[in-house]
């Protein structure tokens, strides 16, 4: 690692101010950032820790029935505390391993937008709102490709607001080495339709599978997927699976998510 200083602000305002400094970078749970720093792939002068900001930690119910999760809330805390949104709690309970879940945060995951991360699929399938220190961003506008988001430099994900669906489930097929999603599919059934988001599969990062959404909105059953095919174009091909295999898994995982949704 290159040398840097760590700042530990206790308010969002102070964090935002600190992030305006030269080569300042936000440090949330660090479960991705610290390995990146070890490999000297990033050279911040200051890391601004977001994990000591009480207003960014915790889970509460929004007035509109949504579930609001502070950006610095750990995966373990979401797994334990988001029971009202069972699909989301179950997803959080299976990110990484237990020690990673005790440090990693939802805000960190969404800000990083790893193409194989779990949380982006939940945010996108839920039609969540990503709340930052300056604005609110709809999930449909937020994810902009592999490791790309709508966040500006220094902008902090302070909260994520999830509409709670009638039924949901996240089905993950793990890449056997990293245990990230080789393909993960989040299915969320709302009164006004079904949303399906896919992670792990695409060169473009997390994305919606609109054809499946249409079929499932008409008939929320795995059978509704029978006639659909997922094109392999643009999907990731690597040591762990060809684009064709990933395309196949998208359909299988979607079906399983539908079957398991409650």
């Amino acid at each position, binding site marked *: 690692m290159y040398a840097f200083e760590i700042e530990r602000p206790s308010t969002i305002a102070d964090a935002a101010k600190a992030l305006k400094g030269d080569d300042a970078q936000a440090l949330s749970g660090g479960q991705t950032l610290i390995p990146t*720093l070890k490999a000297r792939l990033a050279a911040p002068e200051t890391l601004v820790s977001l994990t000591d900001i009480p207003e960014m930690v915790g889970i509460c119910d929004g007035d509109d029935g949504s579930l609001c999760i502070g950006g610095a809330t750990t995966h373990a805390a979401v797994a334990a505390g988001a029971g009202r949104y069972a699909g989301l709690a179950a997803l959080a309970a299976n990110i990484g391993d237990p020690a990673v879940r005790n440090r990693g945060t939802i805000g960190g995951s969404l800000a990083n937008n790893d193409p194989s991360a779990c949380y982006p699929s939940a945010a996108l399938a839920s039609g969540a709102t990503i709340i930052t220190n300056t604005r609110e961003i709809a999930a449909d506008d937020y994810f902009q490709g592999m490791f790309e988001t709508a966040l500006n430099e220094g902008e902090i994900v302070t909260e994520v607001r999830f509409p709670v669906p009638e039924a949901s489930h996240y089905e993950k097929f793990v890449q056997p080495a990293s245990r990230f999603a080789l393909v993960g599919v989040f299915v969320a059934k709302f009164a006004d339709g079904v949303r399906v988001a896919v992670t792990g599969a695409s060169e473009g990062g997390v994305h919606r599978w609109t054809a499946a959404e249409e079929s499932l909105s008409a008939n929320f059953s795995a059978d509704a997927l029978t006639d659909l095919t997922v094109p392999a174009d643009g999907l990731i091909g690597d040591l762990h699976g060809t684009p064709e295999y990933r395309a196949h898994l998208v359909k299988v995982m979607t079906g399983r998510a539908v079957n398991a949704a409650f």
Partner: protein
Amino acid sequence: MAQVSMTVNGKAVSGEVEGRMLLVNFLREDLKLTGTHVGCDTSQCGACVVHVNGEAVKACTMFAAEADGADVATIEGQANADGSLNVIQQAFQDHHGLQCGFCTPGMVMSAAALLNDNPNPTEHEIRAYLEGNICRCTGYHNIVKAIMAAAGQDVTSIAAE
């Protein structure tokens, strides 16, 4: 450089650390607590698992500065007050749950965190919980068995020593 203070295995400690000093390096180099090991640089092997404020974390993926004010527990503090092995450590010895010993501190700390959350885990729950702890020697058989035994389960029907 920043001043950090924390409690490690019940003892107050402090030191001057660079921002980039990882908790594991603070433990190993500054405190000479070399029982916590480093087996990878991608946060996967779990040889460095310690408890911070009662929760299992990877000490190689947390900065020492972030542990300022925290209560840290490492393998060196796990034995009973009289120096005898605690229940988990004893089960690992009884059931040959270690060979080279390098992953062992992380395994014991993860097992302790698991049993704290879930005092009577199933075989499946144990195997799933150990996703972040890699052992290359034991094939996991005797580790899983030891944790079941530490939970008070009868493991006599599980094959072999």
